């Protein structure tokens, strides 16, 4: 295959590289008159001849002309064609103006090549840096939310302090999770998410250390191109199968003096979305207060006076207790020495006790960038810092970004470039996520409604021991100061004592040399590297509920790419050609050192591996992978309205069996700018495009050869277990096939624009880690199997309804519909379990890929529903069919394995409205999602533990549902009995809600939402005001994030921030961090 590629490339070169009389050489650079950016792809032709050239990536061209000179014609779609008389000049630079009737965008495409959008045969959507930075979002993935059709961003709550933000392009294209490739200026970078120890289930204890792309400084970003499908991403090979996020950073340019840009923002975060709580009943299990019984045998004499006093059932972490009617009781803190010792206080509500627990978070960031250059060298350097304190007390994050980018022309033909980014991120006490761990879980799910959070802030006794509300009856019975909490630490102890610290150093960048071999041929070499070292320490404090513990973890990741690229461009008559030929070696190295104490600490308070009471858990991991690739592209243009692109790539992957480790795949795409032929006054631009691509892909390392799992030794006897994953020595590469067609049209001098794209992607022969019945002896098996088909529609609509000299209104709307269907799985299998979300004890909810159905089906415990049958057992019509059935006592009948809907949304999108009045601008961004389901553990326990408003509402008898059923209380249940007869029951509230444990269907929610995500009101000081100052520009703005959850179907949970930490599909949440609303200001100026 390599031979074939070389040969075709050689042919291409020879065809168009015939020699002619070279008498003079004219060179120059074409830039945009609008913003000074370089203009690639501009055709430069000597008038009346076929001699010509096309500008390269940097806008440079070189053309040979006869000694007598002549006239050069510069042309490009969307730009005003210009003719320049050569005269005696050898350098002709030109700033080209837009043809306002023919505005065209330049977008960054694969291999970082800037191209006119009109020439592309596939959909690429680009978002400029200023749109991303509208509200100074610190995670670049988060800043893409809603801005690109077909991109679903699943964000962590702002409370997560740099938590992982996941991105899904065009729904699900594979049977597993599919994350796009991130590329910064040609350097592929890791966007892994880091959790504490690889546990991905939300079972608790996870701290989310964020996704690695968040190391990129948003202030350094010029633009992000989203290559959504395999066609656009074909040249990235296997890793482009799920799309590519192509980040182009800001560069220096030739200018006078040194430019300086400064950007500051400060935002304030407050907890926004919390469930509605009931404020009628406090902690306990019954509506009577337990009382204190004095026992002279064990209790101090002074306690005798307390005999008969009302207590609270401190052991209850639920609120099914007595009415908060002001009765005097012994609150938890009255058992500790201090001011409240032995005192009674009223038992009364604290409606905002959960909200009061949180602080106001502050995020402050500064960035200063210098840039400058002359004709031969230019540079940009940028320094940024971000300081963040979270809404969870004690959580804080600091980030420092440094970047440098420099280009120097070492000679007329040799250009060098170096760019490097360094980021250091340090955080303390990132919140723990998940059910059963951390304060949010305890307060939102298991709590006593009367507790005054402020009284918990004093979480330590004078001797350093913990003060907590969840007292054990044993301690009171024994007459001692409370010793150890039951079920929950004091939430403030949890935050301030059970700490974590993490530190990440990230360096990425590249150096390159480019040599202009011929006028039309440039060769370049690149060395690219992405490195990180993440260190994590976690502490479970001595004196808390859990065994004290110290955990330390160091992860390193390195990816090096060695790349060679030859670029050829040429224009002959009406035909322009751009061709590239490249090769790449990619090497990945990862390592991991995990150490955790076991059995507690020998010296309380000494947090070190050496303090482990029992043999500590130590795990070392290291891995390597290498991929060798060659690839080529060729783009042909005819008269600036007809374009054809072909690409081919061959990869050889070290992670596949050597017999099957090399694979080739091609793509072809075409674009036809039909408006060029129409000359319509209504249609200012119109094109149609079509593409077809195949893409090969491999698997991660170490999935071929059988190995054994190493277990904890029994004494000095080691343990090994047969691996639960069945490896596969016969794996083949997987293939995806993508077809897409689209059109881009603009009307009425570009006042209206519409871009529509439809696509279909089939992934076949997928490499899957298939969940198999454990009775086979294995839990999962690596197989080549199955096909999944994704079809979708993406629409981008732009309009400028109003445009006057002073006022303009722009609308930008995007939306996407995607449907991913499972066509087949491995032989004989009808279902693939994607994720076991809840254990069998909790109803066994799972997420599945089932043949013939949409990817991502929930299956779990549900309501049994009535279905009438005739005598022979056939289904017959009945008015009660489909109604929920209850048993004779009125309790729901539970059915296993009920289908509970699909994870993926039907529709996602966003709309931006921008208003400009003179120097004032207002930009509002709303994003939305329709459809998609999720499961809420928080809601389930919010009900079960008697926290939610629903558990203390008034029923249709006018009685509280907690009143005795005999007195007209109880939760009303309207259902049918097992014979289909409509029945009404009133059930004791606690039995009703506890009866829904494991009834997964009761807590499945529709994740649809509409959200005002971003708002910016900015003012740019007018030029006449700052004209005499050194300032080039000054802009001040008020910014807001997550301002208003306009529409949601679930109380108290933000469906756009469903997170289960780093792993999984965000199909469920448990103890999710509350949504956070941010408001602040932004100041930017340039010198």
């Amino acid at each position: 295959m390599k031979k074939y590629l070389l040969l075709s490339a050689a042919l291409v070169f020879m065809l168009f590289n015939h020699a002619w009389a070279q008498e003079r050489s004219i060179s120059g650079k074409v830039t945009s008159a609008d913003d000074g950016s370089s203009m690639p792809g501009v055709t430069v032709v000597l008038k009346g001849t076929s001699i010509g050239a096309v500008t390269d990536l940097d806008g440079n061209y070189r053309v040979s002309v006869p000694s007598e000179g002549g006239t050069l014609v510069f042309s490009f779609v969307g730009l005003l064609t210009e003719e320049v008389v050569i005269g005696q000049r050898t350098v002709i630079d030109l700033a080209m103006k837009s043809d306002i009737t023919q505005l065209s965008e330049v977008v960054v495409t694969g291999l970082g090549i800037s191209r006119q959008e009109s020439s592309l045969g596939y959909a690429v959507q680009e978002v400029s840096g200023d749109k991303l930075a509208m509200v100074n979002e610190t995670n670049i993935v988060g800043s893409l939310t809603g801005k690109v059709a077909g991109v679903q961003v699943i964000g962590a709550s702002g409370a997560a302090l740099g938590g992982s933000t996941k991105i899904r392009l065009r729904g699900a294209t594979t049977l597993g999770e599919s994350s796009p490739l991130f590329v910064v200026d040609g350097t592929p970078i890791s966007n892994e998410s880091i959790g504490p120890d690889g546990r991905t289930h939300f079972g608790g204890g996870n701290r989310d250390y964020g996704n690695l792309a968040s190391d990129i400084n948003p202030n350094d970003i010029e633009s992000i191109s989203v290559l959504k499908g395999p066609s656009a991403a074909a040249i990235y090979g296997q890793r482009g199968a799920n799309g590519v996020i192509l980040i182009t950073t800001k560069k220096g340019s030739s200018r006078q003096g040194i430019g300086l840009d400064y950007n500051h923002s400060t935002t304030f975060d407050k907890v926004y979305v919390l469930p509605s709580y009931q404020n009628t009943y406090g902690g306990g299990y019954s509506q009577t207060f337990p009382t204190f019984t004095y026992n002279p045998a064990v209790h101090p004499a002074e306690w005798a006076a307390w005999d008969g006093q009302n207590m609270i059932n401190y052991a209850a972490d639920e609120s099914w207790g007595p009415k908060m009617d002001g009765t005097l009781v012994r609150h938890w803190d009255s058992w500790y020495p201090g001011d409240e010792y032995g005192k009674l206080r009223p038992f009364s509500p604290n409606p905002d006790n959960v909200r009061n627990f949180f602080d106001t978070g502050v995020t402050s960031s500064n960035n200063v960038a210098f840039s400058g250059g002359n004709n031969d060298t230019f540079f940009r350097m940028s320094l940024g810092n971000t300081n963040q304190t979270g809404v969870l007390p004690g959580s804080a994050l600091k980030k420092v970004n440094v970047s440098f980018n420099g280009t120097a022309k070492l000679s007329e033909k040799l250009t060098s470039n170096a760019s490097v980014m360094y980021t250091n991120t340090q955080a303390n006490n990132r919140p723990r996520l998940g059910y059963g761990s951390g304060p949010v879980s305890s307060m939102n799910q298991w709590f006593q409604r009367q507790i005054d959070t402020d009284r918990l802030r004093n979480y330590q006794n004078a001797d350093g021991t913990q003060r907590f509300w969840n007292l054990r009856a044993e301690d009171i019975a024994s007459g001692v100061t409370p010793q150890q909490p039951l079920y929950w630490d004091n939430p403030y102890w949890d935050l301030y004592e059970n700490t974590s610290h993490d530190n990440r150093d990230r360096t990425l960048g590249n150096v390159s040399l480019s040599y202009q071999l011929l006028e039309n041929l440039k060769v370049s070499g690149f060395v690219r590297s992405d490195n990180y070292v993440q260190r994590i320490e976690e502490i479970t404090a001595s004196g808390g509920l859990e065994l004290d513990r110290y955990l330390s973890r160091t992860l390193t990741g390195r990816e090096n790419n060695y790349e060679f690229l030859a670029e050829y461009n040429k224009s002959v008559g009406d035909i322009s050609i751009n061709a590239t030929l490249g090769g790449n070696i990619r090497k990945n190295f990862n390592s991991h050192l995990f150490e955790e104490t076991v059995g507690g600490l020998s010296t309380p308070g000494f947090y070190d591996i050496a303090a482990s009471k029992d043999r500590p858990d130590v795990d070392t991991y290291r891995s390597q992978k290498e991929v060798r690739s060659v690839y080529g592209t060729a783009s042909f243009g005819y008269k600036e309205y007809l374009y054809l692109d072909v690409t081919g790539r061959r990869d050889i992957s070290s992670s596949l069996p050597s017999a099957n480790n090399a694979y080739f795949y091609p793509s072809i795409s075409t674009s036809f700018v039909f408006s060029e032929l129409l000359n319509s006054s209504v249609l200012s631009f119109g094109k149609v495009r079509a593409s077809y691509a195949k893409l090969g892909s491999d698997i991660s390392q170490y999935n071929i050869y059988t190995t054994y799992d190493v277990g904890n030794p029994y004494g000095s006897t080691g343990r090994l277990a047969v691996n639960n994953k069945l490896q596969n020595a016969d794996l083949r590469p997987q293939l995806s096939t993508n077809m897409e067609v689209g059109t881009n049209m603009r009307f009425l001098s570009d006042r209206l624009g519409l871009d529509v794209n439809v696509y279909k992607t089939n992934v076949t022969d997928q490499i899957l880690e298939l969940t198999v019945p454990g009775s086979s002896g294995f839990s999962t098996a690596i197989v080549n199997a199955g096909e999944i088909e994704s079809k979708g529609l993406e629409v981008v609509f732009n309009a400028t309804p109003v445009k006057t000299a002073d006022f303009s209104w722009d609308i930008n709307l995007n939306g996407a519909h995607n449907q991913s269907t499972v066509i087949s799985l491995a032989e004989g299998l009808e279902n693939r379990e994607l994720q076991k979300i809840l254990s069998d004890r909790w109803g066994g909810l799972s997420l599945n890929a089932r043949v013939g159905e949409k990817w991502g089906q929930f299956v779990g415990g549900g309501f049994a529903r009535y279905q009438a049958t005739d005598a022979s057992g056939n289904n017959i019509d009945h008015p009660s069919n489909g109604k929920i059935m209850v048993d004779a006592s009125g309790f729901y009948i539970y059915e296993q394995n009920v289908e509970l809907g699909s994870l993926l949304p039907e529709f996602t999108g966003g709309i931006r409205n921008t208003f400009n009045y003179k120097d004032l601008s207002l930009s509002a961004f709303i994003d939305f999602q329709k459809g998609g389901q999720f499961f809420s553990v928080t809601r389930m326990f919010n009900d079960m533990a008697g926290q939610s408003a629903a558990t203390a509402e008034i029923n249709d008898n006018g009685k509280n549902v907690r009143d005795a059923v005999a007195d007209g209380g109880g939760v009303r249940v309207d259902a049918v009995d097992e014979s289909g007869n409509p029945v009404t029951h009133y059930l004791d509230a606690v039995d009703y809600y506890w009866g829904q444990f494991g009834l997964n269907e009761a807590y499945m929610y529709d994740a649809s939402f509409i959200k005002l995500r971003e708002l910016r009101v900015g003012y740019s000081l007018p030029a006449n005001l700052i004209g005499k100052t050194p300032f080039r520009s000054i802009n001040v703005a008020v910014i807001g994030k997550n301002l208003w959850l306009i529409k949601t179907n679930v109380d108290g949970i933000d469906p756009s921030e469903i997170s289960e930490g780093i792993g999984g599909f965000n199909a469920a949440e448990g103890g999710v961090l509350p949504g956070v609303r941010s408001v602040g200001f932004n100041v930017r100026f340039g010198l």
Partner: protein
Amino acid sequence: MIKNNKIFSIITAGLLLAGSACTDFGDINVDPNQPSNAPTSLLLTDAQTWVATAIGAPEGVLYTQQLSETQYTETSRYNQTTFDYYPWYTGPLANLQQIINLNTDDATKNAAAADGSNNNQIAVARIMKAYFFQYMTDRWGALPYSEALQGAANFNPAYDTQDKIYADLLKEVKEAVAMIDAGAGPNGDIIFGGDMGSWAAFGNTLRMNMAMRISDIDPATARSEFEAAYNAGVISTDVMYNHLNDANNQNPWYGRFITRTDYAVSEPMINYLQSVNDPRISAYAEPALATGTFVGMPYGISTAGDIPNSDVSFITDNIINTKDADQAIFTVAQVEFLLAEAVNDGWSIPGTAQQHYEAGIQASWEQWGVFDAAAFATYIADAAVVWNGTNADQLIGTQKWVALYMQGYEAWAEWRRLDFPALTPAPDAVNNSGQIPVRQAYPSTEYTLNKANYESIVAAQGADNLDNKLWWDTK
């Protein structure tokens, strides 16, 4: 074109740099983090640690009301229907199968023999497989058995009905004991230290227990197997699982009580022990803190959270506060009660039923360290305890229930077989029948991953719930 040649050599050199021609990566894809070969001794140790999980599970002790849950009474109110059995296949059974394979395969058997004679390793693996499979079938009934553990050869194992499984288990244990040779016992054996005599006795004991388990449905087979097993020699000392003073190998009940207080001794157990003045009460339970007396925790009520922990008796500190407290795998008491039953049924076993019955009680007292000859004499004469062959099921059932304290799943199986003591279902049961479970339902994943086989066994065996009796449970 000379220039072009130069260009092509640069481009070619660039591509060669990319190493594109070479598909050989050496051993870069060999995982350095996990071994590619396993000594069979390490596989055996790993499989044996699962025994502790099997005996230490909480469901059986709750179903039989030996213990009560304190605040959160889900399991004791039969909230959970489906139970996952996959870990037993992917865990111990996969290891044991691999030990058999490595000792059978000509390519590996010589190397494997370094850890004990091939025959003895296979014998131990087969006995342990039978142990786990009996444990499993007594929970779920029909199971993937003959088609299980075949890896890629069968990702959809069909179920075998329980009668077929029991027939094969009896055969397996018999054959395993018969193949024991004079060679070295297995290394890595943390139960018997490689002593093959103990393995033979343990195998025979298991066979005897299996035989008795099916005595109601197939008395003829039960009798012949039982007698043969007994005559081949059974255990004479308690077989214990030794936990270590190490968090990775600690008693599971100790682990449960580090942060929580979920299980207390149940009211029926405490009340019974008190009613017959049984000294085991002080070995099983701690006095309630508030009163200093033994108080049982009411069983299976929804308002359990209203009862303060200080008002009830928790499990003995010798278990929940003792990291290395041992667990019983099979005891002499169990053997004696089996013999008592056999003699009472007229099977050819030496001794009288009463002797074996009383020896069983004595063995249990000795196991729990409370034996005192005088107290014992009084105890076995108590009207509620004294032997009476016409009331054997009730007497043996009740004494077994007491003796199998903390051996939950075995206690539950024997309770289902003997139907004594009479237990009242949880007052606030949440399962639809409201009855004490007599089996557990298949893992929900089986419905999604092995649907056709699942549906066919449910059609054959009956509804997949907690109420559908097992094949051997005829009474």
